């Protein structure tokens, strides 16, 4: 009883010890904030990585892909059984994207993916990241009249018609100049005035000129028809920068309604080398997952068109090859188990396939985030350990100060164990108080983290959280109760451990010497 009462009284009267616990408080608060932010960041990243990747990806190593996808799908269905929620076939191939921009050709290296409009939405969250709301509802590769993102007010058919009209007017003017030159009418050239330029004096698009001169208008009217649709990653089609006011802006190099060129390798029969195949596509939407790796490399086209263009259709049987099958499993399924079953069904020594879960594919990135969290936790716990030494020093001082009282307690029959437990209880109480306050501070910080970031930006003038780097509008946080519990438990343990040595010293004090202490 005396242990509890004395510990409580010491807690209320020894403010120096409370000062020593402040570092524990700050350590706990920081640990909670860091873990919550890292968990939020990690969760957001998982969500986005998983959003575009299906649960399991079944890839062929060869350029020509899997020869008979329907047979493969049937086999996969047999292995996976009830757990299979969705499956789709894709063709993935490296490609070069090129499009004209103010008289210059812009090229981008892209990962061209042919997707099946009917089934691709079943295996991932792909369509959620499209800019046009109708495409988010149901994926099509048709150009829409307008209504894209607010960043793209003039897009779709509106943009396309305006551009074609300008190009045609330009061509008309050019033809007039050429005909005037042929008749050698000297004053005709003086009357020349170019049409109103909707692009604000942008130089003539050389690609448009070539294309229109090659294409008879009765066959393909660009103003009314589109090429095969392509959905480009946001960062493929735009450049993100800050304007003079410090606002983040996207500058679009091409937008829905524009035409682009894609060059990719064909799938030749054995014995022949792959050749480069070029085709023209119309940008019908943009894809923004906010994962820069995806947004800066992906371009999606309809599967059937890509198969046709690459020569992946068997002329004899009409069977279409694919390079990958994407599998979505029922929630809660053990991905690794299914992967291993599929590998067992398609052993690597017989089939040249790579079967991976989405975690396998993004393993290094996920491991890096995990490693970062672990190292931060170790470093911050070291801070609390340093605080532990502060507690140790303070407790030694208190033991020295209380030497005579310890002698009295022993003279009155207090066992050494009881004297020891006074200081252990005291350490535990201080640790609990410090960690408790730290926990509350940390949770409050996490709750108001965006407001605090804004406040810090205002005070320091430095951007704390740069959306151009992270692609998050707000700092993502997730408070995991178990982590909070572990942090608090760890800190209390450190406080108790730090009080063990002073407590042992108190317990070993000789009562006679302690009573004589001046």
């Amino acid at each position, binding site marked *: 009883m005396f242990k509890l009462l004395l510990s409580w009284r010491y807690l209320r009267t020894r403010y120096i010890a409370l000062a020593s616990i402040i570092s524990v408080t700050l350590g706990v608060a920081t640990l909670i904030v860091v873990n919550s932010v890292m968990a939020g960041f990690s969760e957001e990243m998982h969500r986005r990585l998983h959003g575009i990747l299906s649960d399991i990806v079944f890839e062929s190593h060869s350029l020509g892909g899997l020869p008979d996808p329907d047979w493969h799908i049937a086999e996969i269905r047999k292995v996976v059984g009830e757990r299979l929620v969705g499956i789709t076939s894709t063709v993935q191939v490296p490609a070069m994207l090129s499009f004209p921009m103010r008289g210059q050709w812009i090229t981008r290296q892209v990962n061209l993916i042919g997707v099946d409009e009917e089934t691709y939405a079943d295996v991932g969250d792909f369509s959620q990241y499209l800019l046009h709301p109708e495409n988010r509802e149901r994926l099509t590769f048709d150009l829409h009249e307008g209504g894209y993102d607010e960043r793209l007010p003039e897009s779709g058919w509106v943009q396309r018609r305006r551009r074609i009209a300008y190009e045609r007017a330009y061509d008309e003017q050019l033809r007039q100049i050429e005909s005037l030159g042929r008749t050698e009418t000297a004053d005709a050239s003086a009357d020349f005035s170019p049409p109103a330029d909707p692009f604000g004096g942008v130089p003539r698009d050389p690609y448009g000129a070539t294309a229109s001169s090659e294409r008879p208008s009765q066959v393909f009217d660009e103003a009314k028809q589109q090429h095969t649709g392509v959905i480009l990653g946001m960062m493929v089609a735009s450049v993100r920068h800050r304007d003079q006011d410090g606002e983040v802006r996207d500058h679009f190099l091409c937008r829905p309604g524009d035409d682009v060129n894609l060059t990719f390798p064909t799938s030749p029969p054995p014995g022949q080398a792959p050749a480069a195949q070029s085709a023209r596509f119309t940008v019908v939407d943009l894809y923004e997952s906010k994962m820069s790796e995806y947004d800066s490399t992906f371009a999606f086209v309809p599967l059937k068109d890509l198969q046709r263009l690459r020569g992946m259709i068997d002329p004899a049987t009409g069977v279409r090859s694919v390079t990958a099958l994407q599998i979505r499993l029922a929630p809660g399924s053990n991905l690794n188990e299914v992967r291993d079953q599929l590998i067992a069904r398609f052993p690597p020594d017989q089939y040249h396939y790579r079967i991976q879960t989405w975690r396998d594919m993004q393993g290094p990135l996920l491991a890096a985030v995990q490693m970062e969290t672990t190292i931060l936790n170790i470093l911050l716990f070291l801070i609390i350990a340093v605080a532990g030494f502060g507690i140790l020093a303070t407790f030694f001082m208190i033991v020295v100060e209380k030497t005579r009282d310890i002698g009295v307690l022993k003279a*009155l*029959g207090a066992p050494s164990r009881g004297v020891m437990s006074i200081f252990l209880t005291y350490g535990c109480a201080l640790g609990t108080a410090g960690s408790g306050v730290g926990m509350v501070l940390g949770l409050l910080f996490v709750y108001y983290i965006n407001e605090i970031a804004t406040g810090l930006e205002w005070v320091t003038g430095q951007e704390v959280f740069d959306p151009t780097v992270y692609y998050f509008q707000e700092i993502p946080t997730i408070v995991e109760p178990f982590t909070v519990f572990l942090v608090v438990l760890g800190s209390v343990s450190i406080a108790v451990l730090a009080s063990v040595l002073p407590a042992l010293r108190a317990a070993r004090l000789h009562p*006679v010497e302690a009573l004589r202490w001046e």
Partner: protein
Amino acid sequence: MTHAVYDRTELSPVDPDGLSEPFYGGSAPQSLTAPAPHMAPQPALLSARRLMKSYRKGKHVIPVLRGVDFAVRQGEFVAVVGQSGSGKSTLLHLLGTLDAPDSGEICFEGNRIDNLPYQARDVLRNRYFGMIFQFYHLLPEFNTLENVLVPRMIGQSVWRYWLQRRAHGQRAGELLEMVGLSHRLKHKPRELSGGEMQRAAIARALIASPQLLLADEPTGNLDRHTGAEIMRLLRTLNREQNLTIIMVTHDSTIAGRADRTVRLVEGLVERVT
């Protein structure tokens, strides 16, 4: 085991009803002038035989007690006197099991106690011996009432203490009333005078109804008048409650109030009067 004798939970109080009677004050002079109780021959309550104790200081061995024989009977009030450094405080510490002798033996109620394990000695000090000190040694964080209750808090588990807290509180209140401190229950030691603190310490020593009170210079830090009051209180306790008291003092006037005086000179008993 020898110490098992002292491992009892409770010791029957010497005179629990007598303790509750307020005698300090109006009735004190009468009690203090009462004749000494008849000391019938009886076995010693506490005895020491050939006690030797020395301290080491570096390579030097300083002998403090050099074969002390000592005995006190139930109900006796013995004063141990001697000059500074004569070993009287050391003797008291050995008798109170706060320290162990180098050789010799100490017996309490016929049982040897100097070689008991720590736990048994803790129980002995907590329930059978009361101790008061020259500098009172009250715990500054506790008020007067709590200081008196400390031996009970030490001796019992939290649960048991909690169950008996009312009885303990009542007993402590009675003891404080007996020593004349009923108006200072909630005061911290720093708010008390020297005499009040010593009286609180006496109440603390009596809370477990001990058989023996060990007093180390109880008046050494008090003025003559206050010292005399404390001595009157001790004398009353000795006479009315038959409490055995061993008091160490360097003041022969104070020692004169005891039944018997043992003089220590250079670690040996020189004279018993």
